[in-house]
Protein backbone atom coordinates (compact mmCIF):
# COMPACT_ATOMS: atom_id res chain seq x y z
CA UNK A 1 0.00 0.00 0.00
CA UNK A 2 2.20 2.83 1.28
CA UNK A 3 5.16 1.10 -0.39
CA UNK A 4 3.84 1.91 -3.86
CA UNK A 5 5.88 5.02 -4.53
CA UNK A 6 3.63 6.49 -7.23
CA UNK A 7 0.61 6.44 -4.93
CA UNK A 8 2.75 7.67 -2.04
CA UNK A 9 3.87 10.66 -4.05
CA UNK A 10 0.33 11.56 -4.99
CA UNK A 11 -1.22 11.42 -1.54
CA UNK A 12 0.35 11.89 1.88
CA UNK A 13 0.10 9.34 4.66
CA UNK A 14 -2.87 9.71 6.92
CA UNK A 15 -3.04 9.61 10.70
CA UNK A 16 -6.59 8.35 11.00
CA UNK A 17 -8.89 6.78 8.41
CA UNK A 18 -9.19 4.00 5.86
CA UNK A 19 -7.14 3.04 2.83
CA UNK A 20 -8.80 0.82 0.27
CA UNK A 21 -6.09 -0.63 -1.90
CA UNK A 22 -5.74 -2.98 -4.86
CA UNK A 23 -8.99 -1.92 -6.43
CA UNK A 24 -9.01 -3.11 -10.07
CA UNK A 25 -8.01 -0.18 -12.28
CA UNK A 26 -10.74 2.29 -13.12
CA UNK A 27 -13.23 0.60 -10.76
CA UNK A 28 -12.89 3.02 -7.82
CA UNK A 29 -16.15 4.68 -8.90
CA UNK A 30 -18.01 1.47 -8.08
CA UNK A 31 -16.27 1.27 -4.71
CA UNK A 32 -17.34 4.86 -4.01
CA UNK A 33 -20.87 3.84 -4.99
CA UNK A 34 -20.90 0.88 -2.59
CA UNK A 35 -19.48 2.99 0.24
CA UNK A 36 -21.83 5.85 -0.62
CA UNK A 37 -18.92 8.25 -0.21
CA UNK A 38 -21.04 11.18 -1.26
CA UNK A 39 -22.85 11.00 2.11
CA UNK A 40 -19.68 11.38 4.15
CA UNK A 41 -19.56 15.16 4.10
CA UNK A 42 -23.05 15.24 5.56
CA UNK A 43 -22.07 12.86 8.32
CA UNK A 44 -18.74 14.45 9.21
CA UNK A 45 -17.64 17.72 7.64
CA UNK A 46 -13.86 17.27 7.98
CA UNK A 47 -13.66 13.99 6.10
CA UNK A 48 -11.59 14.15 2.93
CA UNK A 49 -11.35 11.51 0.24
CA UNK A 50 -8.57 10.91 -2.27
CA UNK A 51 -9.33 8.68 -5.22
CA UNK A 52 -6.32 7.50 -7.18
CA UNK A 53 -6.91 5.85 -10.51
CA UNK A 54 -4.66 3.71 -12.65
CA UNK A 55 -1.57 3.97 -10.46
CA UNK A 56 1.30 1.48 -10.70
CA UNK A 57 0.94 -1.66 -8.62
CA UNK A 58 3.31 -4.49 -7.87
CA UNK A 59 0.43 -6.99 -7.67
CA UNK A 60 -1.99 -5.78 -10.31
CA UNK A 61 0.20 -3.78 -12.73
CA UNK A 62 -2.34 -0.96 -12.52
CA UNK A 63 -4.83 -0.35 -9.75
CA UNK A 64 -7.09 2.20 -8.10
CA UNK A 65 -6.92 3.31 -4.48
CA UNK A 66 -9.14 5.28 -2.17
CA UNK A 67 -7.89 7.05 0.92
CA UNK A 68 -10.46 8.34 3.34
CA UNK A 69 -9.03 10.73 5.89
CA UNK A 70 -10.73 10.74 9.30
CA UNK A 71 -13.33 8.05 8.50
CA UNK A 72 -13.33 4.35 9.22
CA UNK A 73 -15.33 2.37 6.75
CA UNK A 74 -17.95 0.16 8.37
CA UNK A 75 -16.84 -3.48 8.53
CA UNK A 76 -20.10 -4.69 6.96
CA UNK A 77 -19.46 -2.46 3.95
CA UNK A 78 -15.85 -3.66 3.85
CA UNK A 79 -17.11 -7.25 3.70
CA UNK A 80 -19.41 -6.43 0.78
CA UNK A 81 -16.57 -4.66 -1.07
CA UNK A 82 -14.39 -7.72 -0.69
CA UNK A 83 -17.16 -9.90 -2.10
CA UNK A 84 -17.36 -7.74 -5.21
CA UNK A 85 -13.60 -7.23 -5.64
CA UNK A 86 -11.67 -10.11 -4.04
CA UNK A 87 -8.36 -8.36 -4.80
CA UNK A 88 -9.16 -5.42 -2.53
CA UNK A 89 -7.32 -4.88 0.72
CA UNK A 90 -8.71 -2.62 3.39
CA UNK A 91 -6.46 -0.97 5.93
CA UNK A 92 -7.67 0.89 8.95
CA UNK A 93 -5.29 3.63 10.12
CA UNK A 94 -5.39 4.57 13.78
CA UNK A 95 -2.73 7.01 15.09
CA UNK A 96 -0.56 6.32 11.99
CA UNK A 97 -0.70 2.58 12.75
CA UNK A 98 -1.93 0.39 9.87
CA UNK A 99 -4.15 -2.62 10.59
CA UNK A 100 -5.14 -4.82 7.69
CA UNK A 101 -8.80 -5.81 7.85
CA UNK A 102 -9.60 -9.47 7.36
CA UNK A 103 -12.90 -9.56 5.49
CA UNK A 104 -15.54 -12.06 6.48
CA UNK A 105 -17.86 -13.67 3.99
CA UNK A 106 -21.23 -13.03 5.59
CA UNK A 107 -23.81 -15.82 5.31
CA UNK A 108 -26.54 -13.19 5.31
CA UNK A 109 -26.33 -9.56 4.24
CA UNK A 110 -29.12 -7.58 5.79
CA UNK A 111 -30.34 -4.08 5.14
CA UNK A 112 -27.57 -2.86 2.84
CA UNK A 113 -28.63 -4.02 -0.62
CA UNK A 114 -31.96 -3.63 -2.40
CA UNK A 115 -33.53 -6.60 -4.16
CA UNK A 116 -33.31 -6.20 -7.96
CA UNK A 117 -36.82 -7.65 -8.30
CA UNK A 118 -39.14 -4.66 -8.09
CA UNK A 119 -42.07 -6.89 -7.16
CA UNK A 120 -40.23 -8.34 -4.17
CA UNK A 121 -41.98 -7.69 -0.86
CA UNK A 122 -38.73 -6.17 0.43
CA UNK A 123 -39.27 -3.34 -2.09
CA UNK A 124 -42.79 -2.59 -0.84
CA UNK A 125 -42.58 0.99 0.32
CA UNK A 126 -44.68 0.93 3.44
CA UNK A 127 -43.89 -2.51 4.81
CA UNK A 128 -41.49 -2.51 7.78
CA UNK A 129 -39.03 -4.86 6.11
CA UNK A 130 -35.30 -5.00 5.69
CA UNK A 131 -33.90 -6.75 2.60
CA UNK A 132 -31.85 -9.87 3.27
CA UNK A 133 -29.58 -11.86 1.00
CA UNK A 134 -27.92 -15.22 1.41
CA UNK A 135 -24.40 -15.51 0.03
CA UNK A 136 -23.38 -18.18 -2.48
CA UNK A 137 -19.66 -17.58 -2.52
CA UNK A 138 -18.82 -20.41 -4.91
CA UNK A 139 -21.18 -19.05 -7.57
CA UNK A 140 -20.44 -15.39 -6.67
CA UNK A 141 -24.11 -14.57 -6.26
CA UNK A 142 -26.45 -13.29 -3.59
CA UNK A 143 -29.97 -14.67 -3.25
CA UNK A 144 -32.85 -12.67 -1.85
CA UNK A 145 -34.21 -14.37 1.25
CA UNK A 146 -37.73 -13.30 0.36
CA UNK A 147 -38.19 -13.75 -3.39
CA UNK A 148 -35.14 -15.93 -4.24
CA UNK A 149 -33.96 -13.53 -6.95
CA UNK A 150 -30.27 -13.90 -7.73
CA UNK A 151 -27.87 -10.98 -7.78
CA UNK A 152 -24.34 -11.54 -9.12
CA UNK A 153 -21.66 -9.98 -6.94
CA UNK A 154 -20.54 -7.65 -9.73
CA UNK A 155 -24.02 -6.11 -9.95
CA UNK A 156 -24.17 -5.27 -6.24
CA UNK A 157 -23.02 -1.64 -6.71
CA UNK A 158 -26.23 -0.87 -8.63
CA UNK A 159 -28.38 -2.01 -5.71
CA UNK A 160 -26.66 -0.54 -2.66
CA UNK A 161 -29.27 1.18 -0.53
CA UNK A 162 -28.90 4.92 -0.39
Amino acid at each position, binding site marked *: MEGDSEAGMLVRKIQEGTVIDHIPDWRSGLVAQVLRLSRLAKLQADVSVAILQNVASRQLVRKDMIKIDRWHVDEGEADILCLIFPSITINYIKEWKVTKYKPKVPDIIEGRIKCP*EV*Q*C*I*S*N*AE*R*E*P*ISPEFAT*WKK*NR*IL*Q*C*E*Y*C*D*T*LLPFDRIPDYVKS
Partner: protein
Amino acid sequence: MPKMYPARLLSQLERRTLTSYFSGKDVVSAKDFKRTQLEQLFQAVDDLERHPGSLEGALKGKLAALLFFEPSTRTYSTFQIAARNLGMKVSGFSDAGGSSVSKGETLHDTVRMFEGYGADCFIIRHKRMGAARFAAKITDVPVVNAGDGSREHPTQAMTDLYSIRSAFGRIDGLKVGILGDLRYGRTASSLVYALSNYDVEISFIAPEALQIRPEVEHFLNERGVTAKKEADLKAVAAGLDVLYVTRIQKERIPDPTDFERVKGKYEVNLETLKDVKPSLKVLHPLPRVDELAPEVDATNYARYFTQAAAGLPLRMVLLNFILGGGD
Protein backbone atom coordinates in the same frame (compact mmCIF):
# COMPACT_ATOMS: atom_id res chain seq x y z
CA MET B 1 -30.17 -53.85 21.95
CA PRO B 2 -32.67 -51.71 20.05
CA LYS B 3 -36.28 -52.33 20.91
CA MET B 4 -38.15 -54.10 18.11
CA TYR B 5 -41.53 -52.77 17.10
CA PRO B 6 -44.14 -54.60 15.02
CA ALA B 7 -44.32 -53.19 11.48
CA ARG B 8 -47.75 -51.67 12.01
CA LEU B 9 -46.70 -49.88 15.20
CA LEU B 10 -43.49 -48.73 13.54
CA SER B 11 -45.52 -47.25 10.73
CA GLN B 12 -47.61 -45.38 13.29
CA LEU B 13 -44.47 -44.14 15.04
CA GLU B 14 -42.98 -42.98 11.76
CA ARG B 15 -46.20 -41.25 10.93
CA ARG B 16 -46.21 -39.42 14.26
CA THR B 17 -42.63 -38.28 13.75
CA LEU B 18 -43.39 -37.01 10.29
CA THR B 19 -46.65 -35.44 11.35
CA SER B 20 -44.72 -33.60 14.01
CA TYR B 21 -42.49 -32.25 11.22
CA PHE B 22 -45.53 -30.46 9.81
CA SER B 23 -46.86 -29.43 13.19
CA GLY B 24 -46.81 -25.66 13.53
CA LYS B 25 -44.75 -25.37 10.34
CA ASP B 26 -45.01 -22.68 7.69
CA VAL B 27 -45.65 -23.81 4.15
CA VAL B 28 -43.90 -21.02 2.31
CA SER B 29 -41.88 -22.83 -0.33
CA ALA B 30 -42.00 -26.23 -2.00
CA LYS B 31 -38.24 -26.28 -1.44
CA ASP B 32 -38.82 -26.81 2.27
CA PHE B 33 -40.33 -30.28 1.86
CA LYS B 34 -38.45 -33.49 1.39
CA ARG B 35 -39.63 -36.66 -0.25
CA THR B 36 -40.48 -38.50 2.98
CA GLN B 37 -42.65 -35.61 4.11
CA LEU B 38 -44.40 -35.36 0.76
CA GLU B 39 -45.00 -39.10 0.70
CA GLN B 40 -46.46 -38.94 4.19
CA LEU B 41 -48.79 -36.19 3.10
CA PHE B 42 -49.86 -38.16 0.03
CA GLN B 43 -50.54 -41.31 2.06
CA ALA B 44 -52.76 -39.31 4.37
CA VAL B 45 -54.62 -37.89 1.34
CA ASP B 46 -55.09 -41.47 0.10
CA ASP B 47 -56.52 -42.35 3.52
CA LEU B 48 -58.89 -39.42 3.36
CA GLU B 49 -59.99 -40.34 -0.16
CA ARG B 50 -60.75 -43.86 1.09
CA HIS B 51 -62.53 -42.59 4.19
CA PRO B 52 -64.20 -39.30 3.27
CA GLY B 53 -65.46 -37.55 6.35
CA SER B 54 -62.73 -38.98 8.57
CA LEU B 55 -61.36 -35.50 9.21
CA GLU B 56 -64.74 -33.82 9.70
CA GLY B 57 -64.44 -31.45 12.63
CA ALA B 58 -60.80 -32.41 13.34
CA LEU B 59 -59.85 -28.77 13.89
CA LYS B 60 -63.09 -27.65 15.47
CA GLY B 61 -62.92 -24.21 17.02
CA LYS B 62 -59.68 -23.14 15.33
CA LEU B 63 -59.58 -20.01 13.21
CA ALA B 64 -58.17 -19.85 9.68
CA ALA B 65 -57.36 -16.34 8.45
CA LEU B 66 -57.56 -16.26 4.65
CA LEU B 67 -55.81 -13.10 3.54
CA PHE B 68 -56.09 -12.89 -0.23
CA PHE B 69 -54.52 -9.61 -1.29
CA GLU B 70 -54.82 -10.74 -4.88
CA PRO B 71 -58.14 -11.98 -6.28
CA SER B 72 -58.60 -15.72 -6.33
CA THR B 73 -61.55 -18.02 -6.88
CA ARG B 74 -60.21 -21.52 -6.95
CA THR B 75 -57.50 -21.45 -4.29
CA TYR B 76 -59.56 -19.29 -1.96
CA SER B 77 -62.60 -21.55 -2.25
CA THR B 78 -60.59 -24.74 -1.78
CA PHE B 79 -58.92 -23.48 1.36
CA GLN B 80 -62.21 -22.14 2.65
CA ILE B 81 -64.02 -25.44 2.08
CA ALA B 82 -61.05 -27.42 3.46
CA ALA B 83 -60.98 -25.33 6.63
CA ARG B 84 -64.75 -25.57 7.09
CA ASN B 85 -64.74 -29.33 6.49
CA LEU B 86 -62.21 -29.55 9.31
CA GLY B 87 -64.59 -27.62 11.54
CA MET B 88 -62.56 -24.40 11.47
CA LYS B 89 -63.91 -20.89 11.59
CA VAL B 90 -62.88 -18.86 8.59
CA SER B 91 -62.21 -15.14 8.44
CA GLY B 92 -60.43 -12.76 6.10
CA PHE B 93 -60.99 -11.55 2.54
CA SER B 94 -60.81 -12.91 -0.99
CA ASP B 95 -59.80 -9.66 -2.66
CA ALA B 96 -57.88 -6.73 -1.20
CA GLY B 97 -60.36 -4.35 -2.82
CA GLY B 98 -62.95 -5.11 -0.18
CA SER B 99 -60.64 -4.79 2.80
CA SER B 100 -58.65 -2.22 4.77
CA VAL B 101 -55.79 -3.00 2.40
CA SER B 102 -57.51 -0.81 -0.20
CA LYS B 103 -57.15 2.01 2.35
CA GLY B 104 -53.42 1.40 2.50
CA GLU B 105 -53.04 -1.14 5.28
CA THR B 106 -49.82 -3.10 5.01
CA LEU B 107 -49.40 -6.87 5.00
CA HIS B 108 -47.53 -6.51 8.27
CA ASP B 109 -50.40 -4.73 10.03
CA THR B 110 -53.03 -7.04 8.58
CA VAL B 111 -51.17 -10.09 9.88
CA ARG B 112 -50.69 -8.55 13.32
CA MET B 113 -54.35 -7.61 13.46
CA PHE B 114 -55.61 -11.13 12.65
CA GLU B 115 -53.06 -12.55 15.05
CA GLY B 116 -54.74 -10.43 17.70
CA TYR B 117 -58.11 -11.87 16.67
CA GLY B 118 -56.80 -15.33 17.52
CA ALA B 119 -55.93 -16.73 14.08
CA ASP B 120 -54.51 -20.25 14.33
CA CYS B 121 -53.12 -20.14 10.82
CA PHE B 122 -52.71 -17.70 7.95
CA ILE B 123 -53.38 -18.59 4.35
CA ILE B 124 -51.97 -15.78 2.28
CA ARG B 125 -52.01 -14.80 -1.37
CA HIS B 126 -50.21 -11.64 -2.39
CA LYS B 127 -49.04 -10.08 -5.63
CA ARG B 128 -45.58 -9.41 -4.22
CA MET B 129 -42.93 -12.09 -4.34
CA GLY B 130 -41.77 -13.27 -0.93
CA ALA B 131 -44.87 -11.95 0.85
CA ALA B 132 -45.56 -15.26 2.59
CA ARG B 133 -41.95 -15.50 3.78
CA PHE B 134 -42.26 -12.01 5.22
CA ALA B 135 -45.55 -12.88 6.92
CA ALA B 136 -43.91 -15.97 8.43
CA LYS B 137 -41.25 -13.74 9.95
CA ILE B 138 -43.84 -11.42 11.44
CA THR B 139 -45.85 -14.07 13.24
CA ASP B 140 -45.32 -17.35 15.07
CA VAL B 141 -48.67 -18.56 13.77
CA PRO B 142 -48.18 -20.97 10.81
CA VAL B 143 -48.35 -19.32 7.39
CA VAL B 144 -49.43 -21.15 4.26
CA ASN B 145 -48.38 -19.55 0.99
CA ALA B 146 -51.36 -19.58 -1.39
CA GLY B 147 -49.33 -17.83 -4.12
CA ASP B 148 -46.89 -14.95 -3.91
CA GLY B 149 -46.58 -13.07 -7.19
CA SER B 150 -44.73 -15.11 -9.77
CA ARG B 151 -42.63 -16.91 -7.17
CA GLU B 152 -44.33 -19.93 -5.61
CA HIS B 153 -47.53 -21.80 -4.93
CA PRO B 154 -46.42 -24.77 -2.83
CA THR B 155 -49.81 -26.31 -2.07
CA GLN B 156 -50.56 -26.38 -5.81
CA ALA B 157 -47.25 -28.21 -6.34
CA MET B 158 -48.22 -30.75 -3.68
CA THR B 159 -51.56 -31.23 -5.45
CA ASP B 160 -49.80 -31.59 -8.80
CA LEU B 161 -47.38 -34.14 -7.48
CA TYR B 162 -50.17 -36.06 -5.79
CA SER B 163 -52.09 -36.11 -9.09
CA ILE B 164 -49.07 -37.48 -10.96
CA ARG B 165 -48.60 -40.12 -8.28
CA SER B 166 -52.30 -41.06 -8.46
CA ALA B 167 -52.22 -41.33 -12.25
CA PHE B 168 -49.10 -43.50 -12.49
CA GLY B 169 -48.79 -45.05 -9.03
CA ARG B 170 -45.30 -43.55 -8.85
CA ILE B 171 -43.35 -40.44 -9.67
CA ASP B 172 -39.85 -41.86 -10.12
CA GLY B 173 -38.84 -42.69 -13.66
CA LEU B 174 -41.30 -40.35 -15.35
CA LYS B 175 -40.55 -37.83 -18.05
CA VAL B 176 -42.26 -34.56 -17.21
CA GLY B 177 -42.63 -31.67 -19.65
CA ILE B 178 -43.55 -28.30 -18.17
CA LEU B 179 -45.00 -26.05 -20.83
CA GLY B 180 -45.91 -22.40 -21.12
CA ASP B 181 -45.03 -19.47 -18.94
CA LEU B 182 -42.29 -20.75 -16.69
CA ARG B 183 -40.88 -17.32 -15.96
CA TYR B 184 -43.94 -15.67 -14.44
CA GLY B 185 -45.96 -18.76 -13.53
CA ARG B 186 -45.59 -19.61 -9.85
CA THR B 187 -46.97 -23.12 -10.12
CA ALA B 188 -44.16 -24.19 -12.47
CA SER B 189 -41.37 -23.19 -10.11
CA SER B 190 -43.01 -24.81 -7.08
CA LEU B 191 -43.64 -27.99 -9.07
CA VAL B 192 -40.00 -28.12 -10.15
CA TYR B 193 -38.83 -27.73 -6.54
CA ALA B 194 -41.12 -30.54 -5.41
CA LEU B 195 -40.20 -32.79 -8.38
CA SER B 196 -36.52 -32.40 -7.56
CA ASN B 197 -37.09 -34.89 -4.71
CA TYR B 198 -37.75 -37.62 -7.28
CA ASP B 199 -35.85 -39.35 -10.04
CA VAL B 200 -37.54 -37.66 -12.97
CA GLU B 201 -36.52 -36.18 -16.30
CA ILE B 202 -37.72 -32.60 -16.62
CA SER B 203 -38.10 -30.62 -19.84
CA PHE B 204 -38.89 -26.92 -19.74
CA ILE B 205 -40.86 -26.12 -22.88
CA ALA B 206 -41.18 -22.37 -23.41
CA PRO B 207 -39.96 -19.53 -25.59
CA GLU B 208 -36.72 -18.01 -24.38
CA ALA B 209 -38.46 -14.96 -22.91
CA LEU B 210 -40.64 -17.14 -20.69
CA GLN B 211 -38.12 -19.85 -19.80
CA ILE B 212 -37.59 -21.01 -16.24
CA ARG B 213 -36.12 -18.40 -13.89
CA PRO B 214 -32.41 -18.38 -13.01
CA GLU B 215 -33.03 -19.08 -9.32
CA VAL B 216 -34.92 -22.28 -10.18
CA GLU B 217 -32.06 -23.42 -12.41
CA HIS B 218 -29.64 -22.51 -9.66
CA PHE B 219 -31.62 -24.65 -7.20
CA LEU B 220 -31.58 -27.61 -9.59
CA ASN B 221 -27.84 -27.24 -10.16
CA GLU B 222 -27.21 -27.21 -6.42
CA ARG B 223 -29.29 -30.39 -6.08
CA GLY B 224 -27.54 -32.02 -9.03
CA VAL B 225 -30.80 -32.35 -10.97
CA THR B 226 -30.50 -32.04 -14.73
CA ALA B 227 -33.27 -30.56 -16.81
CA LYS B 228 -33.38 -29.53 -20.43
CA LYS B 229 -34.87 -26.50 -22.10
CA GLU B 230 -36.87 -26.77 -25.30
CA ALA B 231 -38.52 -24.11 -27.38
CA ASP B 232 -40.66 -26.58 -29.32
CA LEU B 233 -43.17 -29.00 -27.80
CA LYS B 234 -42.95 -31.28 -30.84
CA ALA B 235 -39.29 -31.98 -30.10
CA VAL B 236 -40.10 -33.72 -26.82
CA ALA B 237 -43.84 -34.53 -26.84
CA ALA B 238 -43.50 -38.15 -28.00
CA GLY B 239 -41.34 -39.17 -25.04
CA LEU B 240 -43.31 -37.50 -22.26
CA ASP B 241 -45.32 -39.23 -19.53
CA VAL B 242 -46.68 -35.99 -18.10
CA LEU B 243 -47.34 -32.71 -19.85
CA TYR B 244 -47.92 -29.91 -17.34
CA VAL B 245 -49.47 -27.00 -19.19
CA THR B 246 -49.49 -23.50 -17.72
CA ARG B 247 -51.26 -20.31 -18.67
CA ILE B 248 -49.34 -17.34 -20.04
CA GLN B 249 -49.42 -14.91 -17.11
CA LYS B 250 -50.47 -11.89 -19.14
CA GLU B 251 -50.99 -9.81 -16.00
CA ARG B 252 -47.39 -10.37 -14.85
CA ILE B 253 -45.53 -9.83 -18.13
CA PRO B 254 -44.10 -6.30 -18.07
CA ASP B 255 -43.87 -5.92 -21.86
CA PRO B 256 -47.22 -6.55 -23.67
CA THR B 257 -45.38 -7.30 -26.93
CA ASP B 258 -43.79 -10.32 -25.22
CA PHE B 259 -47.30 -11.59 -24.59
CA GLU B 260 -48.47 -10.98 -28.16
CA ARG B 261 -45.44 -12.83 -29.55
CA VAL B 262 -46.09 -16.04 -27.62
CA LYS B 263 -49.87 -16.03 -27.35
CA GLY B 264 -51.30 -19.17 -28.93
CA LYS B 265 -47.90 -20.58 -29.93
CA TYR B 266 -47.94 -23.16 -27.19
CA GLU B 267 -51.48 -24.38 -27.50
CA VAL B 268 -52.12 -27.99 -26.64
CA ASN B 269 -54.84 -29.59 -28.79
CA LEU B 270 -55.55 -32.89 -30.49
CA GLU B 271 -53.13 -32.03 -33.28
CA THR B 272 -50.22 -31.38 -30.88
CA LEU B 273 -51.05 -34.57 -29.00
CA LYS B 274 -51.09 -36.68 -32.18
CA ASP B 275 -47.81 -38.55 -31.57
CA VAL B 276 -47.71 -38.75 -27.78
CA LYS B 277 -47.67 -41.91 -25.66
CA PRO B 278 -51.19 -43.31 -25.13
CA SER B 279 -50.50 -43.18 -21.38
CA LEU B 280 -49.60 -39.46 -21.40
CA LYS B 281 -51.39 -37.39 -18.78
CA VAL B 282 -52.00 -33.69 -19.32
CA LEU B 283 -52.14 -31.58 -16.17
CA HIS B 284 -52.97 -27.91 -15.78
CA PRO B 285 -53.26 -25.89 -12.55
CA LEU B 286 -56.23 -24.01 -14.08
CA PRO B 287 -57.65 -21.56 -14.95
CA ARG B 288 -56.88 -22.02 -18.63
CA VAL B 289 -57.27 -19.57 -21.48
CA ASP B 290 -56.12 -20.56 -24.98
CA GLU B 291 -53.26 -22.86 -24.11
CA LEU B 292 -55.32 -26.01 -23.58
CA ALA B 293 -58.12 -26.72 -26.06
CA PRO B 294 -61.45 -27.99 -24.63
CA GLU B 295 -61.34 -30.81 -27.22
CA VAL B 296 -58.66 -32.44 -25.03
CA ASP B 297 -61.10 -32.71 -22.11
CA ALA B 298 -62.79 -35.82 -23.50
CA THR B 299 -59.54 -37.72 -24.07
CA ASN B 300 -57.75 -40.12 -21.71
CA TYR B 301 -54.90 -37.62 -21.56
CA ALA B 302 -56.93 -35.09 -19.59
CA ARG B 303 -56.23 -35.24 -15.89
CA TYR B 304 -56.70 -31.60 -14.91
CA PHE B 305 -60.18 -31.77 -13.43
CA THR B 306 -59.20 -34.74 -11.24
CA GLN B 307 -56.10 -32.72 -10.36
CA ALA B 308 -58.20 -29.72 -9.36
CA ALA B 309 -60.45 -31.91 -7.21
CA ALA B 310 -57.42 -33.34 -5.39
CA GLY B 311 -56.63 -29.86 -4.11
CA LEU B 312 -59.39 -30.12 -1.52
CA PRO B 313 -58.42 -33.30 0.37
CA LEU B 314 -54.75 -32.38 0.08
CA ARG B 315 -55.32 -29.00 1.72
CA MET B 316 -57.49 -30.59 4.39
CA VAL B 317 -54.73 -33.05 5.28
CA LEU B 318 -52.09 -30.35 5.17
CA LEU B 319 -54.01 -28.02 7.49
CA ASN B 320 -54.68 -30.94 9.80
CA PHE B 321 -50.98 -31.84 9.87
CA ILE B 322 -49.91 -28.25 10.52
CA LEU B 323 -52.43 -27.49 13.22
CA GLY B 324 -51.69 -30.56 15.21
CA GLY B 325 -54.71 -32.68 14.42
CA GLY B 326 -52.16 -35.27 13.29
CA ASP B 327 -53.41 -38.69 12.42
